[in-house]
């Protein structure tokens, strides 16, 4: 990774070059990462790598004209070329009346210990050891296993010619694995993310996946229909991402969003639903500022079931006479205290779902979404898991998922699926539309 002092010199050099051009303002963003990963399948390691990446991005403004250029080379010629490209394109770009001036100096919240040294310097041997634990669990149970271990260290430095200076360094890591029975009828999954590798227990994750694989084998057929469902965190995270993506004041004001015609104060969900963002949420890899360097604040967007507001960009806030919020990061759906057994208890007939796959929007107005269950689906009868059942395609909205929710478990950070990077609990909801059977295992 590029050392902090070198990054600072690079940023200063670029801004000096921009300053030398009359009428130009500039914002520089330098992102530097070092990532390591090991992938495994059919009970052995299949691919692996340690990769360094760098991105140096310059946005130049001439009044209402603007353009961006990016390179990953730090030599003088490449930097001169970067600045030249951005200046040339910005002069040629048509004027954008919505363009906001670059930000000056800002004050930011300080996350506590966002970079974990052990995660940053994890070795290939340590990754292989984690994989070895997963392979051992699968070999002992005579099932096939596939999975992924990853860790990374990232830093970003932002600066503008108007005096803004922001930087943030953090680590992230995750592991997920999928076990499959030799007869091809059972499949199980487990995955967790965070910022400290010590928080990830490879053997425990593998054992969960193996147990799910064996317990989901030889599934019974269950008719499609509307069911009470217990969604494990990975399933919740993937469907919830469509609601999180709809938090945008402009699209709502323009009448093309689920939130169109909704107002702060509207009670949308039960009182135990609180959805918030926190730029100091270290395990989620949240950032104290957004891509423009705008300072982010912890915000409850849904507070006890009630909509409190929507995120405003700087332009839309000015136009609508509202305070800007920046682009939120670090999303959490607050959980409750229920264990999985407690969520299942009291369900006369329902379905327990491990995770979803291939979610796609069907209707942006209602947030109706389609997708499939996978890696462990079970029928619940009279408060207990009865037997495994086939997979389903669902057609359901995250809005209805939350509106009909009446039980929340402990939150966690799933990793490796379609809903990574958020903290969510398992939840119980009702009338969930399992629309057709999927024969996939």
């Amino acid at each position, binding site marked *: 990774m590029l050392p902090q002092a070198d990054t600072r010199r690079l940023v200063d050099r670029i801004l000096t070059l921009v300053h030398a051009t009359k009428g130009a303002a500039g914002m520089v963003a330098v992102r530097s990462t070092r990532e390591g990963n090991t992938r495994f399948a059919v009970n052995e390691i299949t691919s692996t790598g340690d990769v*360094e990446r760098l991105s140096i991005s310059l946005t130049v403004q001439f009044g209402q004209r603007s353009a961006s250029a990016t390179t990953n080379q730090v030599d003088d010629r490449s930097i001169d070329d970067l600045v030249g490209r951005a200046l040339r394109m910005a002069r040629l770009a048509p004027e954008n009346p919505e363009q906001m001036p670059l930000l000056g100096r800002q004050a930011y919240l300080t996350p506590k210990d966002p970079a974990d040294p052990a995660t940053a310097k994890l070795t290939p041997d340590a990754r292989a050891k984690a994989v070895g634990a997963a392979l051992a669990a699968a070999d002992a149970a005579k099932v096939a296993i596939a999975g992924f271990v990853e860790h990374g260290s990232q830093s970003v430095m932002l600066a503008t010619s108007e005096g803004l200076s922001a930087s943030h360094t953090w680590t992230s890591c995750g592991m997920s694995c999928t076990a499959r029975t030799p007869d091809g009828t059972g499949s199980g999954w487990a995955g967790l993310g965070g910022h400290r590798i010590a928080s990830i227990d490879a053997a425990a994750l593998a054992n969960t996946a193996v147990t799910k694989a064996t317990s989901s084998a030889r599934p019974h057929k269950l008719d499609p229909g509307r069911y009470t469902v217990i969604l494990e965190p990975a399933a919740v995270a993937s469907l919830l991402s469509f609601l999180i993506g709809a938090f945008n004041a402009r699209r709502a004001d323009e009448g093309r969003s689920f939130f169109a015609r909704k107002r702060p104060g509207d009670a949308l969900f039960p009182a135990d639903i609180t959805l918030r963002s926190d730029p100091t949420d270290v395990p989620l890899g949240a950032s104290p500022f957004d891509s423009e360097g705008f300072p982010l604040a912890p915000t409850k967007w849904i507070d006890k079931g009630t909509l409190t507001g929507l995120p405003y960009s700087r332009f839309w806030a000015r136009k609508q006479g509202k305070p800007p919020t920046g682009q939120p990061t670090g999303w959490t759906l607050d959980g409750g205290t229920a264990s999985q057994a407690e969520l299942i208890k009291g369900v006369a007939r329902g379905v327990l779902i491990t995770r979803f796959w291939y979610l796609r929007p069907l209707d942006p107005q209602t947030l109706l979404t389609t997708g499939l269950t996978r890696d462990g689906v079970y029928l619940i009868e009279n408060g207990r898991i009865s037997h495994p059942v086939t997979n389903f395609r669902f057609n359901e909205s995250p809005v209805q998922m939350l509106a009909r929710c009446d039980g929340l478990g402990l939150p966690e950070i799933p990793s490796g699926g379609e809903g990574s990077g958020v903290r969510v609990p398992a939840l119980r909801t009702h009338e969930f539309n399992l629309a057709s059977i999927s024969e996939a295992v």
Partner: protein
Amino acid sequence: MKLSRRSFLTGSSAGALALFAGPRLGAARGLLTEPRLDELVKRALEAATKAGASYADVRVVRIRSENISTREDRVERVASNEDYGVGVRVIAGGAWGFAATPSVTAADAERAARDAVAIAKANAPLMKRPVTLAPVPANVDVWQTPLIKDPFKIPLEDKAEILLAINREAMKVPGVKFVTSQFAAAAEWKLLASTDGAYIEQEVVRLGPGYAVTAVDDKRGEFETREFQLPPRQAGWEYVEGSSMLADARRIGEEAVEKLKAPSVAPGKKDLILDPSNLWLTIHESIGHTTELDRALGYEANYAGTSFATPDQRGKLQIGAPFLTFYADKTTPGGLATCGYDDDGVATQKWNLIENGVLVSYQTTREQAGWIGEKASRGTCYADSYGSFPFQRMPNVSLAPGPRERSIDELIAATDDGIVIAGRGSWSIDHQRLNFQFGGQAFWEVKRGKKTRMLRDVAYQANTIEFWHACDAIGGPKSWFMGGTLTDGKGEPGQINSVSHGCPPARFRQINILNTNRRTA
């Protein structure tokens, strides 16, 4: 376009290092401009071999991209990106290792080579079968996208103006409230060299413009969007200039408004006529991914899933009607996955995956060929950047047209009660590629051989095998059309791949049509 480089460079026999020397090939557009890379490649391969690698390859990759996006009467974003670096992949102790850096110097490439070997050695004790590669000739060559006008040399204003002109045309339609349009171009230059004697330079140029028109009914609080995509291609700017994307803008705007006023579809079984602008994606999902060998054998189980079409069913599994032949082809002109050689250094080719409706073959790499008893790779290895590990990626996979000419209008005329779908809408398929559900951009009711009116809220849901068996008619050679995507995802960490799919229009009998309207719920 292959430009022979054999007369300029002296290749070595397989297993030995190539001798990297010789004059530049001046006629090749933008290629062979950095002689210092010969030294870098040589030193990286030597460092890997010295550290204990039984095989090594080096990729030096430069990706330039340009993106312009607009909405209504303004340009929202203009961006130009460059990404450059070197990645070294090795086999040591029977295991893969890989390391990459954006610092393109001989010293850092050597460091990456040694790191890659160290990683391979860390992994070796957990290997149950050593990685073995199918043999390949020591290819030394140059390949580049044939084009007339380099899109990176077209003035920015010209590109922005065509997008703004599209927006103006669409906004003239009463009821249209929003338009967004965008243009993307990418040039991927890659130098691949290996200890098996490959020394190959390639440059692939891809373009992908498109737009989306939204009509809003403020009184009812409803909206509909009609997206239009000029199929992304390997091409020059002449492809955009010669297209009808501007001329079509008014019609696309009118379809957005008509769609908003259209009746919601009545669900149930109906005959389905799929325009190639919709069908290409169904082929991508249900046939393209299904015939990836790594997926079929469980190598993608943790993320993208497996496949119902396992190798033990090769030559036996009837996936669709007997007149359907699907072929893989990394040589199709303009195809997004087309190139001269894959990232294993294997010359690209065309072959059948499904013949007369029966599964006959797979997409393979050098590592994978032996897994199903084949002696040579099909040449489908690809890495999306210098920092990405090369693995099996989809070639262009297409449905061959029927032998006799037949247009989509003839399919409609021969249909009593059906729905026509055009454009790419929502798409989702299960992790063994069986249960799928697709939408579209524009839907028309067909009654007694005629398109009667537009519909909205349409999705079709089927099982892959039942769906392709329900196909009873396809268009002829002149109706064949190639769609594609620039961003097909696979693998962990995720990589993208650009891939095209050609097909004629086709009719499917009694398919399950869903209504996706929950507005009144």
